[in-house]
C-alpha cells in the first residue's frame, strides 16, 4: 500500500510552487485580467523551460514520456495560482488523443510544438444556445475531395484568443453519435473570432464562426465519424486533470481561510478560536482531502487502465466541482468585509469554481456517467 505521489512528483511540485511564488502566484492572472497578455506568455515560456508542457508527450516527439499521475502536481499548482491558459485542453485532452489516435504526420506536426510551448490547443464543442448533447452539434464539415468544408459557430471556447489550434467537434454524418468527428483546425484570419466576457475574467472565452473554411481531410483525429467516442476517451483525461486543478484551487482557499483565522482578531482573540469559524474551515479541509484522494486515484486509474476509471474520474470531477464552490464561498464569508473586496483573492477562486462547475457538462451529467459506469 502506497497511496501518495512519489518523491520525484513531490519535488517537481516544489519547483513549480517556488517558480509560481516568485512570479507572484495570482498576480499573473490579475495582470491578465487587466489586459497584460505578455506577462502570461512569459510565464508560459518559463513553465515550458521547467518541462511542464512536455510531461506526457512521448520522448520521440520531444516530451518526457511521463503520464497522468505526473501531471497531478502541475495541474494542482496552476489551479492554485489560477493561471490563465489552455493547459487543460492541451495537455489533458489534445496530447492524450494525439498520442492514442493521431497519425504519424499529426504527431510529428503537433506534439513537438506543444512540448516546446509554441502551440496551444483548445477544444471547441458547444454551440450557441445548445447543450453538450451529441444531437445538438450542428457545425458541419462536408467532404470535398481531400478537404473538409466547415460551416457553423462554436461558442464558449476556452482560451479562444490564445489558442493556436482548435479541436473542433463537427457533424460529418447523419447518425447522432456516429456522425460526429474531431478535426484539428489551425487558427487563421478566415475564422471570425469574437471574444466573450466571462464572470471569471482570467478565462478568455471566444465565439468562432466558420464560413466555408477548407481544412485538409487528414486533419481529422482518428477515424471519421468516430469523434464522439474519441471525445469520451479524451474527457476521461481532461476531467482527471480538471479534478486536480480544482484541488489546487481548494488547497489555496483552505490555506487562505486558515491563515486569516489565525491573525484576524475580534473580541480580543483570533477568530480561529471560535468554533463557528474553526469547524467551518475543518469542513472545508475534509472536502479538500476527499477531493484530493479522489483525484489522485482518478489519475492512477488512467495510468493503470483500471476497469473503474470512468466511475473514478467522473466522481472525482463532480465531487471536486461541487466542493470547490462550497469552500470558495465559505472563504469569502470567513474573511468578512475584506472578503467581499476586489483586493483579496477570495472572489477569484469563487469565479473560477463557478467557471468549472458546468464546463463540458454539469455535476448532474457526470453523476449520471458514474451511475452508467457502475452499470446501474
Amino acid at each position, binding site marked *: *500500500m*502506497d*497511496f*501518495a*505521489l*512519489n518523491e520525484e512528483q513531490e519535488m517537481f511540485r516544489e519547483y513549480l510552487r517556488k517558480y509560481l511564488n516568485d512570479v507572484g502566484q495570482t498576480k499573473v492572472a490579475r495582470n491578465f485580467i487587466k489586459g497584460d497578455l505578455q506577462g502570461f506568455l512569459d510565464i508560459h515560456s518559463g513553465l515550458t523551460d521547467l518541462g511542464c508542457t512536455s510531461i506526457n508527450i512521448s520522448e520521440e516527439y520531444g516530451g518526457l514520456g511521463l503520464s497522468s*499521475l505526473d501531471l497531478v502536481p502541475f495541474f494542482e499548482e496552476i489551479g492554485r495560482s489560477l493561471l490563465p491558459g489552455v493547459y487543460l485542453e492541451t495537455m489533458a485532452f489534445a496530447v492524450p488523443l494525439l498520442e492514442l489516435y493521431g497519425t504519424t504526420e499529426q504527431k510529428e506536426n503537433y506534439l513537438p510544438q506543444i512540448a516546446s510551448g509554441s502551440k496551444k490547443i483548445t477544444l471547441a464543442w458547444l454551440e450557441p444556445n445548445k447543450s453538450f448533447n451529441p444531437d445538438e452539434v450542428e457545425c458541419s464539415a462536408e467532404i470535398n475531395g481531400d478537404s473538409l468544408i466547415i460551416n457553423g459557430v462554436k461558442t464558449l471556447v476556452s482560451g479562444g484568443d490564445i489558442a493556436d489550434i482548435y479541436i473542433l467537434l463537427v457533424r460529418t454524418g447523419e447518425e447522432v453519435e456516429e456522425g460526429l468527428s474531431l478535426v484539428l483546425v489551425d487558427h487563421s484570419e478566415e475564422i471570425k473570432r469574437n471574444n466573450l466576457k466571462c464572470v471569471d475574467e482570467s478565462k478568455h472565452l471566444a465565439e468562432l464562426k466558420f464560413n466555408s473554411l477548407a481544412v485538409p481531410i487528414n486533419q481529422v483525429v482518428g477515424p471519421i465519424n468516430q469523434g464522439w467516442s474519441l471525445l469520451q476517451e479524451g474527457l476521461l483525461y481532461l476531467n482527471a486533470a480538471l479534478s486536480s486543478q480544482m484541488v489546487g484551487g481548494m488547497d489555496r482557499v*483552505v490555506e487562505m481561510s*486558515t491563515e486569516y*483565522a*489565525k491573525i484576524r482578531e475580534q473580541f480580543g*482573540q*483570533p477568530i*480561529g*478560536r*471560535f*468554533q463557528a469559524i*474553526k*469547524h467551518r*474551515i*475543518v*469542513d472545508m*479541509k*475534509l472536502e479538500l*482531502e*476527499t*477531493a*484530493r*484522494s*479522489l483525484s*489522485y*486515484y482518478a489519475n*492512477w486509474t488512467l495510468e493503470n487502465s483500471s476497469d473503474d476509471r470512468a*466511475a*473514478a474520474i467522473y*466522481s*472525482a470531477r*463532480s*465531487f471536486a466541482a461541487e466542493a470547490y464552490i462550497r469552500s470558495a464561498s465559505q472563504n469569502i464569508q470567513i474573511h468578512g468585509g475584506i472578503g467581499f473586496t476586489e483586493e483579496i483573492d477570495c472572489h477569484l477562486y469563487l469565479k473560477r469554481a463557478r467557471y468549472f462547475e458546468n464546463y463540458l457538462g454539469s455535476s*448532474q451529467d457526470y*453523476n*449520471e456517467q*458514474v*451511475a452508467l459506469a*457502475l452499470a*446501474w
Partner: protein
Amino acid sequence: MEFTISKKEEAFREELKTWLSENLPYGWMEGKREIPTTKEEYSKFLRDWQRTLYEGGWAGIAWPKEYGGRNATIMEEIIYHQEMVRVKAPPLINYIGIHMVGPTLIRSGSEQQKQKYIQNILTGEEVWCQGYSEPNAGSDLSAIQTNATKDGDCWIINGQKVWTSYGHLADRCFLLARTNNHPEKKHKGITAFLLDMKQSGVETKPILQMDGNQEFNELYLTDAIAHDADIIGEVDEGWKVMIELMLHERVGIGAELFSLEMRFNEMVEIAKEHHVNEKPLLEDRFVRQKMAEFYARYRGSLLNYYRNLTNTLKKGHPGPESSIDKLLVSELNKEMASFMITIQGHHGVLWKENAPVDTVWQDEFLASFGQTIGGGTSEVQRNTIGERVLGLPKDRGR
C-alpha cells in the same frame, strides 16, 4: 502509487479465510447469524467466540509473539478487519482489552500486571471496559470528579461513570480517577487504575439506548478498592497513559470503513431490486444522483484512509489526520442510513421483523447517532483537526 498487496499478505488472507470458514459459529457463513439476547447467554456466546479466535491464533494478532500475538504488520491488520467485516463476524467482546488495554500493559505495565492480565485478555476470560466519562465530564473529560483516596496500600474510590460500554459484562475496568487537584491544569492529578469489577463497591446499571440496545452502562463506585499494584504508569499521570492507550489504535477506523463499503454495496442491491411504480428504484433520477454522490463520498473516505495509512506506514504511528477518517466515516454513515430510510417511502417506518428489507436500516440509522458521539463527538474531532492538523488556536477554557 501502489495498491496491490504482497504474496505474503495474500497468503495471510487465504489462511484467515480458510480458518473462518471452518471456525465461525455453526450456520454463520450460511447466513444464520443469531446471537442470543439474554445477558448470560450473550456473554457466553461472545466469550466462546473469542476463545475460538484465541485458540486459532487469531486474537490480538498485532501483539508481539511472546505475549501470544502474531506480530502482524499494519497491512495484515487491515486484511484481518476486511475479512471480519466480509463474513460479518460476531463482535469482539474484549475489543477494549485487545486493542487498547493489552498493548498499553505490554508497553507500560509492570511485570506483575502483565503476568496477571495479559493472557486472560487474549482468551476472553477477562473482559475489559473503560471508565472514562462521567455525568459532568463528557467531551470535557479532564473534568472528572471520581475520587481515589489513599489508605495504606489501598485506594478507596468513589464516584460515578457513565456510557461504560460492556460494563455489565466486564470483569476489569481501565478507570480514570482523580487523585489530586491541580489549580489550573485539570488533566494533572488523574490516575489510571486497573480495577476489579467483581467487588461489592462496584455496581453497573445498563442504559437503554434509543436503538433498543443496552450496550452501555452507568457505573457506580462506592468505596471500591484498588491497590498500589493496580496503578498503571505513575500516580497523577494517568492522562498520559490514556493518550498512549489511544495511540495503539494504529489502524484507526478501518473496520468501520469496510462496513460502510459493504453497506453501500447492499444499498445498491436494494435499489436495484426494490420497485416503485414498476421501475427499479435505481432508475429514479433523484435516487441515482444521490447514490452517485454517496459513491464519491464513500470512495473518497476510503481513499483518504489509504492515504493516511500510507503516512502511518512511513512514520510507524498514526498522525492527527486519523481524526479526519473518524469524522468523515461516522457522518457519512449517518447520512447514508438516513437516505436508505427515505427511499423506502412510508414503509420505512416498519421496524424489526416487519422491516421492508433484510438489512435493518432502521437499526443502522438509529445506531449511527452513537458513532458521531462515542469515541469523541464530531465537534471534538473538528477541534482536533482544526488545532492539530490546521494549527488553529485552541478556544479559551480548554
